């Protein structure tokens, strides 16, 4: 007790990291807070998903349990704990039980390195608002997102069900393919930031421009790859209901099934947080610099945490919005988008950005407003070239409307009156 009392009286430089004991105490507090917020957030997200789906499809959604269906996630959670767990006779049991855990663990670990607010100065020192401020920040995220594949593949294989196996295989090939584009698009971010620490990346964006403006094409590649990595529509082929029942989790029930869902939704949260951090300045409040410098007060922390949540919530909403906007890809389209379009574009883009940075350095233009404006201008041009001139429905959607138009023309030439298509309705 005396040690704790001494600790409470201890005073250090408010800008330096605290000593080991207070550091670990604050870490435990942050860790439990982040874990709880993620799990409660995931529960509320399942409700939000159903509510937003209902809203987009013009129906009510869950509205019986609690006010406005607010207690629905709690009811679902309880139900999943109480439900009977089935173990298929043919399944390989050890891996069948291990797989949901392997999906769950990396999903909840990834958020650890993402800073969610500005630091606070306390009498024990500066507390960074991130669970583990690793110097290798970004590499850690790349490593853990790769581990997420194992849970799904092993679930698919160990179930010993044809649909599960197909789901698991599809998912492994898909996640692996888009991981390359994801990694390559972030190389551009690292080029601009010159560091792999996420706090440095945020600070660099705060002092120049958000990477969304400076690295627009990298943002689009990352966004698409993030959708594919989280197995969300339009990339949800691993669990395409119309073809594979439920894909890799066909044989799962009760809490094990739940854990796959918690993993999927917390991956969504992490992906949204990453998009916000890498391309939208993280916890930075736009147009001001007062939030990026000492003195670190609690008000700054609250304000920046709010800014971060707004950004993350927008991308979570975007996930659900896209779900009800785009139809699912065909498997060959998915693969050619990843390998034949995103991979070469990401490679060329890295070179273009590297050359541009070298040129700006040669001209003597230092990172700042002017530097950001040039980067932004070049990116608008590149985006225009990529999406308007080069594409024309050829690269991004290989099964383009063009093929459909050819077919219609053939049918018309044969004198067949084609069925009603979106093109023919005017």
């Amino acid at each position, binding site marked *: 007790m005396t040690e704790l009392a001494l600790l409470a009286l201890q005073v250090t430089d408010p800008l330096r990291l605290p000593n080991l004991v207070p550091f670990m105490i604050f870490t435990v507090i942050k860790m439990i807070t982040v874990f709880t917020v993620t799990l409660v957030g995931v529960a509320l997200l399942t409700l939000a998903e159903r509510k937003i789906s209902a809203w987009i499809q013009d129906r009510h959604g869950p509205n019986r349990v609690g006010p406005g269906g607010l207690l629905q996630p709690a009811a679902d959670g309880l139900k999943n704990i109480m439900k009977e767990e089935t173990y298929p006779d*043919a399944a390989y049991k050890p891996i069948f039980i291990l797989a949901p855990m392997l999906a769950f*663990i990396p999903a909840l670990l990834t958020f650890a390195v993402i800073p969610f607010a500005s630091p606070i100065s306390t009498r024990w020192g500066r507390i960074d608002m991130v669970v583990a401020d690793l110097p290798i920040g970004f590499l850690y995220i790349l490593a853990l997102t790769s581990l997420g594949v194992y849970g799904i593949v092993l679930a698919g294989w160990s179930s010993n069900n044809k649909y599960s196996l197909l789901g698991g295989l599809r998912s492994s090939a898909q996640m692996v393919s888009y991981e390359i584009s994801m990694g390559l698009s972030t190389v551009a971010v690292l080029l601009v930031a010159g560091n792999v620490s996420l706090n440095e990346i945020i600070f660099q964006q705060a002092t120049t421009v958000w990477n969304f403006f400076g690295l627009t094409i990298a943002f689009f590649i990352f966004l698409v790859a993030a959708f594919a990595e989280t197995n969300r529509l339009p990339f949800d082929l691993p669990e395409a209901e119309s073809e594979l029942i439920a894909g890799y989790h066909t044989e799962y029930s009760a809490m094990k099934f739940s854990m796959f869902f918690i993993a999927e939704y917390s991956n969504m949260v992490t992906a949204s947080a990453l998009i916000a951090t890498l391309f939208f300045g993280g916890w930075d409040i736009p147009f001001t610099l007062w939030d990026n410098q000492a003195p670190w007060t609690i008000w700054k922390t609250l304000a920046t945490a709010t800014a971060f949540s707004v950004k993350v919530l927008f991308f979570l909403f975007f996930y659900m919005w896209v779900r009800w906007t785009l139809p699912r890809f065909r498997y*060959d389209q998915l693969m050619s988008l990843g390998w034949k379009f995103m991979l070469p574009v990401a490679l060329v883009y890295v070179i273009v950005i590297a050359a541009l940075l070298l040129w700006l350095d040669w001209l003597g233009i230092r990172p700042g407003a002017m530097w950001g404006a040039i980067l932004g201008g070049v990116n608008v041009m590149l985006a225009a070239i990529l999406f308007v001139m080069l594409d024309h429905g050829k690269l991004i959607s290989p099964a383009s409307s063009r093929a459909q138009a050819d077919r219609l023309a053939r049918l018309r030439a044969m004198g067949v009156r084609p069925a009603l298509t979106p093109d023919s309705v005017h």
Partner: protein
Amino acid sequence: MEIRAYLPLLLLMGFVIMNAVMMLGLSHLTMRSRPTAVKQSAYESGIPPLGDARERFSVKFYLVAMLFIIFDIETVFMIPWASHYRQLSCAVPLSNGLCPAGNTSFFGLGEMLVFMLILFVGLAYVWKKGALQWD
């Protein structure tokens, strides 16, 4: 930054693993098991299952995994290059994280161009061979 930065991560790993085990354990304790032969068989949309899933599958998936390793390692090589690009394109040591005026060098970009060229040849070869063709 020292080794201390990694302690919270170890703590979090322990915490998350504990939670995962606890969740499965809790659900295992509270369930009532009533297995039947039909319930235990593989679900194939209601019809009796035909054989099991230990069959051969398309070699394409194996090919994708192999290509992934090549291109992912290449990404891993590019990350240190990217985070040190400013120094690599400067003939003298950086001052304040910036290159002193008039000292830019083509070294960093040139090296990556050579690397990329080899990669693009590889990608073109794979493409031409039809390894990326799925229909």
